[in-house]
């Protein structure tokens, strides 16, 4: 199919494969692109290159064990993925999470969000032809990763959550270290604007490209910054607050542009909101317990449970059917990237092939989260 003698199909369209090993797909995603000259006629995503059957695996893992696997879905929001699993178990058991654990969870989740957006900032520069921004963003990201390393024991796949709270208390110097990281981030934020945001070439590659209307965003089930850039209010932290987000002051960033530039601006502004959230919490982490009252062997009551959180890329939902045993009967993850990916064929149509890279970069896909 792909090796037709002349690479053209009957309609005179040129068919190329982007991926599965293309640098700008950030993982093993294959986009089959039908081209008329340089104009995209049709895009078809092919999935499954990194499918590990996490949902099926979960059926044989206990409610303490299934948390760690989710770190391998959206590995840049690993902490938030773990959080959704802990939350669903807590919801089913109706366990009260201690205030200290909640505060630490939120601080770490927001740090994860900043670090994820920083990686996105780094890679969008890389995708569109600038290598330097990568290093500036990675400098701050490294600081966050070291903080995670010191407190959680791992840089990316933390597995710091347990049902009912967190695994260990944070180190005594946690507050001071977080403040250092935030200070470094705030001091260096202007550099991102200088090196990339203000660049006219970069702006021209994003403005007016890949417009996703609000109606389309709803129809495709887009969430997260992708949908908020189209004017859709979909921040789960605001709509269905969890872990004490209802007590915090922050703005839901939306934009009405819907193009790649709007998505860029929304993410850049979201990092500042995350800083604002952490600053509210860091000086008043309550004292007390870090784990709620849970049994050693957790059994969920019979029934169906659903919980959602806002990861760095959108709404992550977990749906668990329990038959009363120690392992889930069925587990389903509603991953943000899968829904966001479905919008790409629609918004890329009619653009040039170079713009597909901008669209991919601003939608910020994480492929293991699509395949699971």
């Amino acid at each position, binding site marked *: 199919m792909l090796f037709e003698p002349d690479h053209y199909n009957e309609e005179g369209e040129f068919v190329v494969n982007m991926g599965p090993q293309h640098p700008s797909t950030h993982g093993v995603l294959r986009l089959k692109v039908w081209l008329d000259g340089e104009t995209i006629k049709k895009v078809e995503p092919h999935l499954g290159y990194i499918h590990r059957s996490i949902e099926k695996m979960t059926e044989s*893992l206990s409610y*303490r*064990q*299934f948390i*760690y*696997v989710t770190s391998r879905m959206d590995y840049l929001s690993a902490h938030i993925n773990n959080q959704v699993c802990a939350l669903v178990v807590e919801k089913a058991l109706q366990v009260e999470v201690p205030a200290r654990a909640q505060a630490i969870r939120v601080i770490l989740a927001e740090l994860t969000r900043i670090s994820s957006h920083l990686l996105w900032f780094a890679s969008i520069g890389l995708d569109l032809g600038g290598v*330097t921004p990568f290093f500036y963003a990675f*400098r701050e990201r*490294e600081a966050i990763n*070291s903080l995670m*390393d*010191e*407190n*959680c*024991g*791992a840089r990316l*796949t933390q*597995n710091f959550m*347990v049902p009912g709270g967190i*695994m*260990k208390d944070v*180190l005594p110097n946690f507050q001071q270290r977080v403040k250092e990281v935030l200070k470094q981030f705030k001091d260096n934020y202007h*550099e991102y604007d*200088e*090196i*990339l945001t*203000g*660049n*006219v*070439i970069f702006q021209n590659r994003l403005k007016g490209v890949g417009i996703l209307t609000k109606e389309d965003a709803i129809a495709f089930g887009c969430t997260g910054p992708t949908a908020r850039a189209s004017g859709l209010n979909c921040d789960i932290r605001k709509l269905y607050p969890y872990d004490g987000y209802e007590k915090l002051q922050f703005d839901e960033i939306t934009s009405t542009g819907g193009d790649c530039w709007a998505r860029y601006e929304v993410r850049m502004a979201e990092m500042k909101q995350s800083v604002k959230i952490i600053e509210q919490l860091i000086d008043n982490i309550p004292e007390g317990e870090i784990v709620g009252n849970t049994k050693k062997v957790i059994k969920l009551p019979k029934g169906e449970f659903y919980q959602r959180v806002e990861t760095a890329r959108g709404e992550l939902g977990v749906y668990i059917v329990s038959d009363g045993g120690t392992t889930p009967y069925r587990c389903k993850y509603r991953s943000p990237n899968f829904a966001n990916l479905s919008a790409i064929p629609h918004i890329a149509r009619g653009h040039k092939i170079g713009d597909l890279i901008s669209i991919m970069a601003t939608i910020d896909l994480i492929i293991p989260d699509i395949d699971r």
Partner: protein
Amino acid sequence: MFIKEYFGGIFKAIKSLLTGMKLTGYYFTHLNKIVTEEYPDNRATLKMPERFRGEVIMPHDENNEHTCTGCQACELACPNGTIKIITKQEVQADGKKKKRIDAFVYHLDMCTMCNLCIDACPSDAIIMGQNFEHSQYERKYMKKVLNKPGSRLKDGVE
């Protein structure tokens, strides 16, 4: 009008490029602000944080004694079957037979460093070690027995 816009655009682009270049130039001339670590060269001074999860290890004290009772809680807690505990019956000083570990087999190649086994251990017999340089030429070297030869259970640990 068109010409003015055209050249204005070019001028703006050059200006924005220079803004970025200025930043790059700043770091190019301020070498003390460099943050990269030269990893294999700084091995002697590189210190991993205390909580870093490198591998599962079993600390032994100076009498070659550990605190693992062979209760297999870690084996049950591990999500991917990394740990295998082989027990034996040992005759004690008072003539009674008791369960002791023969081998604590740890498959490093399967471990995901999730910390669940450490969390589950009731007698804190295993901890996370800081070593992260695990590469080996053959897979068989990844299978480790954590209790040292000739080691025994510390007295008073049940």
